[in-house]
């Protein structure tokens, strides 16, 4: 990955990272948007779209309620897209193997995102105390500007997460992929079924409506059988 590509993907990571919490929340931070966007700037939008589709369901049921910090699926999507492109370019691996390996590396590394996010929110605690001092001094404009500094904290947190996932992930993939790819090849596209099924299970666990599993099973079975018959 060149410096220009890293910078472009980093820009997408920061923009989408800010959308997660601090800025507008138009949901460009969702994997189904963030990953194709990262893929687009790196010249592989379809690969990004596939990564986004695989990651989207996994934490969709997790609600960002109160002080909880959900796993950073935005940086998994952006970083995973960068890693998938890197892995696909580094050898003649099949598409499902490149995708599965990229996500296997990106997902644990993105746990760092929760730590960086926590640090950004702690830094904002200090911001609150600073703003109170401005208010006592009657500096009203400084009070309002102080609030905007929080954006910098969240942007730095998003960039650091992206740097860990992509930077450290590239190093890990260089060492790990040649060793394990051959073991994954026989499974082919079956590797990819793990992601939507786990995502569906997590949503069914967290969604609070009556008979959700019955509804899901009926929908699944009827759709599969209809597709088979047609």
């Amino acid at each position, binding site marked *: 990955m060149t410096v220009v590509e890293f910078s472009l993907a980093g820009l997408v990571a920061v923009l989408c990272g800010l959308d997660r919490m*601090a*800025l507008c*929340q*138009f*949901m460009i931070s*969702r994997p*189904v948007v963030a990953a*194709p966007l990262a893929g687009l700037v790196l010249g592989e939008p379809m690969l990004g779209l*596939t990564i*986004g*589709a695989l990651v*989207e*369901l*996994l934490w969709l049921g997790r609600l960002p*309620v*109160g*002080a909880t910090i959900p796993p950073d699926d935005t940086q998994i999507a952006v970083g995973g897209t960068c890693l998938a492109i890197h892995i696909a370019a580094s050898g003649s691996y099949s598409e499902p193997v490149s995708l*599965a390996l990229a996500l*296997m590396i990106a997902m*644990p590394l993105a746990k760092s995102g929760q730590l960086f996010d926590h640090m950004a929110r702690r830094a*904002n605690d200090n*911001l*609150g105390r600073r*703003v*109170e001092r401005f208010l006592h001094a009657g500096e009203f404009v400084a*009070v*309002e500007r*102080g*609030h*905007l500094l929080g*954006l910098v904290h969240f942007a730095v947190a998003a960039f650091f997460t992206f740097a860990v996932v992509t930077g450290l992930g590239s190093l890990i993939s260089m060492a790990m992929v040649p060793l394990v790819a051959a*073991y*994954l090849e*026989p*499974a082919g*596209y*079956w590797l990819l*079924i*793990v992601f*939507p*099924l*786990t995502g*569906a*299970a*997590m*949503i069914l666990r967290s969604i*609070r*409506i009556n008979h*959700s*599993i019955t*509804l*899901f099973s*009926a*929908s*699944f*079975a*009827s*759709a*599969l059988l209809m*597709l088979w018959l047609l």
Partner: protein
Amino acid sequence: MRLPGHILLRSLCRSFLLQASWNFERMQNLGVLYAMGPALRFLYSGAQLKAAYQRHLSYFNTHPFMSAPVLGATLAQEERKAGGQEVSFSVEEFKGMIMAPYAAIGDALFWGGVRPLAACTALFFAVKGSLLAPLVFLALFNLPHMMMRLWGFFRGYARGVSVVEVIQRRRLPDVAIRFKEGTIVLLGGLSAYLTFSICGRQGVEPGWGLLALPATYSLIWLSRKGLSTLFLVIAGLGLVVTFFQVVS
């Protein structure tokens, strides 16, 4: 003294940055102050302005989209207060009473209802390889999102504290349940389509795809036992790889 349109518009635009300095101590307090700032500076001056800023530095946390009616109604409250009119609740009391119920409604409706439904719909486009998927998701999600932001803010400002009754009449928790039911049906169809297409690619009879159902039940059971998504994905991949190593 009525707030002019451009001040209201500034407050509305600033409300999109409500969570820019979200913090553990007082959560969205600085965001509320930032959004209200232009209106407070128009309504008050000197010691009264300082007191008004201080009022809004207290703890505040609600759903970011549902903050629109709260901010609109709070602006109306401040306007009445600055004009010397009597208000039924103090600004602090009103915000304190309303933030938690609105947070619950917003979480269930937008995070639990609209977002999964929009995502599941968009994923059908994604699995068919259409780059329209992100646009479909953004359009489906942001239509109700922007409606709540705009309608909520101006309705809140026009109705003041009685915006609570207006929101109550919309029966938003019931709407959230309908969205969730729709999500489950789409999720079932989506999972079936993915299973069917992978069976096709691997040359397996699609009827075997029904085995995905017990696999999903097992994953639900394991997640209820406290296993994380990350662990389940890694373990699932490990199982698939091991199975095909043994078979081949």
